[in-house]
């Protein structure tokens, strides 16, 4: 299984859990579907923590891991990054409907979220 897929699944479990999980808990959640080594899960969590995507904290005897941002926050951040290209911030990405100012985008995300509810 590709390394990216595993990282994505670990993040999904953490987001779904809604609370900080131990390596053991993540390991058990993942192993409902397949057979992974405990150390593999530990390595993935460690890597995600190094990237700043997951926060690690010592709780009693075990380390607990929680996402640094909710899925919604991270998605909004990614979309903001995608849309807010200006010549000063380099032409890194290409878009179908064109560029928005960060303010317009924040308003658009907000509005779309309200419609959803």
């Amino acid at each position, binding site marked *: 299984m590709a390394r990216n897929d595993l990282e994505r699944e670990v993040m999904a479990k953490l987001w779904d859990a809604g609370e900080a999980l131990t390596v053991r808990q993540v390991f058990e959640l993942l192993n409902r579907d397949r057979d992974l080594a405990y150390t593999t899960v530990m390595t993935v969590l460690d890597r995600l923590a190094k990237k700043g995507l997951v926060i690690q904290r010592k709780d009693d005897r075990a380390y607990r891991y929680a996402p640094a941002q909710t899925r919604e926050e991270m998605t909004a951040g990614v979309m903001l*990054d995608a*849309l807010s290209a200006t*010549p000063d911030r380099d032409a890194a990405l290409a878009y*179908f409907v064109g560029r928005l100012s960060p303010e317009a985008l924040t308003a658009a995300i907000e509005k779309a979220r309200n419609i959803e509810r």
Partner: protein
Amino acid sequence: MTALLLGALGLTLSLLAPKLLATARWTDRAPVAGVLLWQSLTLTAVLCALGVVLAAPEEASRAAGARHPETVAALLFSLAVAATIVIRLIVSLVKVTSRARARRDRHRMLVDLLDRVERHDGLSGGEVRILEAPLPLAYCVPGRDPRVVLSDGVLKVLDRPQVDAVLAHERAHLRHKHELVMESFTAFYQAVPGPLRDKAPLDAVHLLLEMVADDAARRRAGSGPLRAALERLTDAVPLAEEVTADPEGESRRRRLARLEGPVASSVALTVAGTAAAAGLLVLPTVILVVPWLARALDAWPFQ
């Protein structure tokens, strides 16, 4: 004389021609030629600037007819100026590309993590990523390991043929490496000293590249679905309050307008535009070479 001619050409190309090309509408029917013309215009303007810097002191010293220390100093100075121009452009290009790469790498990592695999539902292609967000949004992350990103708002607003048209559009950007074109113009923009900077070429080239991708997508998915996708995504992104002031609204209108007719591109205009782009690039050389040839021919009988 050479320096004067080059200077005049350089000024025309950097002041007058961009204004004309930015407001031109024939480029909508020949977007590839439009991009080529912008590239050759920019490159020729740079070559002219270099030519002036190098030719002027040389000509002045030849007119003075002496090898004064002053003329040597002037020559060295002009060489230094030319070197500065070239180095500044190269540094800017390296900066822009490396920053863009870093940003894309991080972006790719994040969309890979956020991908909602279970919602792919038969969408073709392993590079597609789906974000969980109601705001309809479609874009690509170029590079060696590219991604096409859709929000699931897009999947809600568009039907399958329209989604395929959007994917075809983004894949055209990736296949034709449009990011390299945008990076080079961004690098040029940032290398120009602040007060002289002009964003018009960047915006014009960006729009032309969208049109090139539109043409590729229409060939694959048909203009009907593409047009519908463009309209629906535009409507879904609330911009109402700023449409009047926003040039983006105008570019969308132009993209939609050219998808209305049976064929958007004109072969004749494309050929003419491409020839003009090639001609433009050759001009400084002609200006330099012709007087030199004339002098050489003048000298011929006396040998």
